[in-house]
């Protein structure tokens, strides 16, 4: 695959995270997360074409099944069952959110992180964009009040780290692939079990309603 196609795919990953920041509709958020995971799968598949690692192919197939198909289907069923059309609001308002995203994207492209983004010199722009995706995924988790959005934020953070690993040439290590697989499984278990439990207890996925634990 050409570098411009990889750039395009990473651009999709980055834009989907921006979309997750902007959208108020849960259905759209879940669909976009599925697209993001598909982009990551294609990026990883490109790596497979170069390395021909069978274990990597297994990881790719797992991501495809779990993150692109199963997780979105589960989330959509959850949204339909509980009529969770709209996501709970954010802690920061929209203009402020956009400013913070711009600042962190610029920060990831700054000289401070040159040692990281120059790990593979030819992939400097891709690594900087992956690092931006990591940062804005973190903000997504912190800024959103909905448990579903927070879960999508964690899963996006995971995708962004995988993207960084691929462009840094680190995805070939079987140990890292096992790590990625384990994280996928653990978060799918967490998301499926705990989000339903939160809804059962609070009648909503709005985590700002959780106020009983304070010093």
């Amino acid at each position, binding site marked *: 695959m050409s570098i411009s196609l990889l750039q395009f795919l990473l651009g999709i990953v980055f834009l989907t995270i921006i979309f997750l920041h902007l959208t108020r509709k849960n259905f759209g958020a879940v669909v976009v997360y599925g697209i993001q995971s598909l982009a990551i799968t294609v990026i990883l598949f490109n790596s497979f074409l170069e390395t021909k690692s069978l274990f990597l192919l297994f990881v790719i197939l797992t991501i495809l099944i779990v993150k692109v198909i199963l997780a979105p289907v589960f989330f959509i069923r959850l949204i339909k069952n509980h009529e969770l059309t709209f996501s709970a609001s954010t802690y920061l308002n929209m203009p402020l959110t956009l400013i913070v995203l711009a600042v962190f994207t610029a920060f990831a492209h700054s000289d401070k*992180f*040159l*040692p*990281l983004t120059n*790990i593979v010199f030819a992939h400097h722009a891709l690594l900087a964009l992956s690092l931006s995706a*990591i940062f804005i995924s*973190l903000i997504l*988790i912190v800024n959103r009040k909905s*448990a579903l959005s*927070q879960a999508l934020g*964690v899963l996006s*953070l*995971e995708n962004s*780290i995988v993207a*960084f*690993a691929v462009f*840094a*040439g*680190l995805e*070939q*290590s*079987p*140990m*890292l692939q*096992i*790590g990625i697989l*384990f*994280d996928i499984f*653990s*978060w799918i*278990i*967490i998301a499926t079990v*705990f989000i339903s*439990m*939160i809804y059962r*207890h*609070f009648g909503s996925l709005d*985590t700002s309603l*959780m106020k*009983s*634990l304070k*010093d």
Partner: protein
Amino acid sequence: MELLIIFSSLFIASLIALISKRRALIETVSVIASLVVFGASTVIASKVVSAGEYLPNVYFSVDSLGALLLLIISCVGLAVTVYSIAYLRKESAKGVVGLTRIRQYFALLNLFVAVMVLAVSSSSPILAWISIEATTLSTAFLISFYNKPSAMEAAWKYLIINSIGLLLAFFGTLLYFTSLQTVGETGFTTWGNLLSNATYLDPAVAKIVFIFVLIGYGTKVGLVPMHTWLPDAHSKAPAPISALLSGVLLNVAFIIVLRFKAITDLAIGPDFSQKLLIIFGLFSVLVAALIIFTQKNYKRLLAYSSIENMGITALGFGFGGVGIFAAVLHLIYHSLVKSALFLTAGNIFLKYGSTKIAKIRGAIGVIPVTAILFLVGFFAITGAPPFGIFLTKLLIFSAGITLHPVITILMILLTALVFVGFFRHAQAMVFGKAEGEIKKESESFWLILPPLSLLVLAFYFSVYQPPFLQILIDNVISHY
């Protein structure tokens, strides 16, 4: 072989808890598994003492620090398992939990212990990371054990904050692997590989990735400002689980930080990591001291005390020299005493049905043995002589006073504040005048024995360090 015995016994105990409906069988098997783990850990530790390292195969290795942690995990694990039986029997007598919950509890408890053993015995940083992630998964269900909204809140907070932390730790771990790209290694990567190739790590990259790892695993350690999950989780989990979380899990995560510190120090020298540990340690003690003073919940009080003690340990490793020796001892004492304190807190909760300090008065007249143990635990954890924490704090401060006098003096003042704040609450709970009439009843032997044993052990190690312990600690100092 020993590790295989540990994992298989815990796995069998978990499996029996899941499939059997006979409570006595589940309890018996869990205790037997804990005894087996304790025995096998002792054998492993003795092998480490004689050979310097335990290397059963390429996937596992236990060094001196790992051996110390294995002993702590098995010792506290045994105490917690024995205590859990009596504790849950009281809870089911009150109708709080049923058999299904109890089965889940023992299955997850054994799994939790198993993954902690895996974390300290794995030779791979990624396997260690997977194990720490697995502790999050197993304990999240244990924190939400009581199935109340507040417990769910604590569990969700725990999951989200720790998941972020651990993903950052994963990112950091991954970047340490860049040192291996230089020499073209892509197979099974061990701590040893990373150490031997540390000099190939770009110094600028080493600094950034250590920050990621420290923030990531520091979240699990409970260092400020990543600590916010800890008081909630510790206060909402059943008391024996809080004992394991506070007394063991924090230390397990800490040794992963120390392993990365050793690699980073080889790449860029110790100054950078020491400075960071001092900063995080300082803020942890500061925040914990201020909150302990105004705390209203005794389980949260103990949780903040853990944050304070992890901060002091971080300072010990940050100051270096004799501070490292003291920090290792501090980890051991803290594990034993804090676990004992959480178990006595469980007894208080069983009697009073509340975790609010204001509702616990006159415990000495109602549950006298527990009250005395709580008081002894308080003196031990705050560093009153002759308990070991007095010595470790003294040594850590003496290590810091020449190079960092301002920080050290501030630390001394803050630990004094912790003592005063903790004492205020402890004396009110133990000697305060009860508002209503609370009936005195005989205390269960099985609820007393585990915390008593842990405190006796902590006291014993305070006045005498057996040769095997000295050898292990000396080895740790030479490596970290």
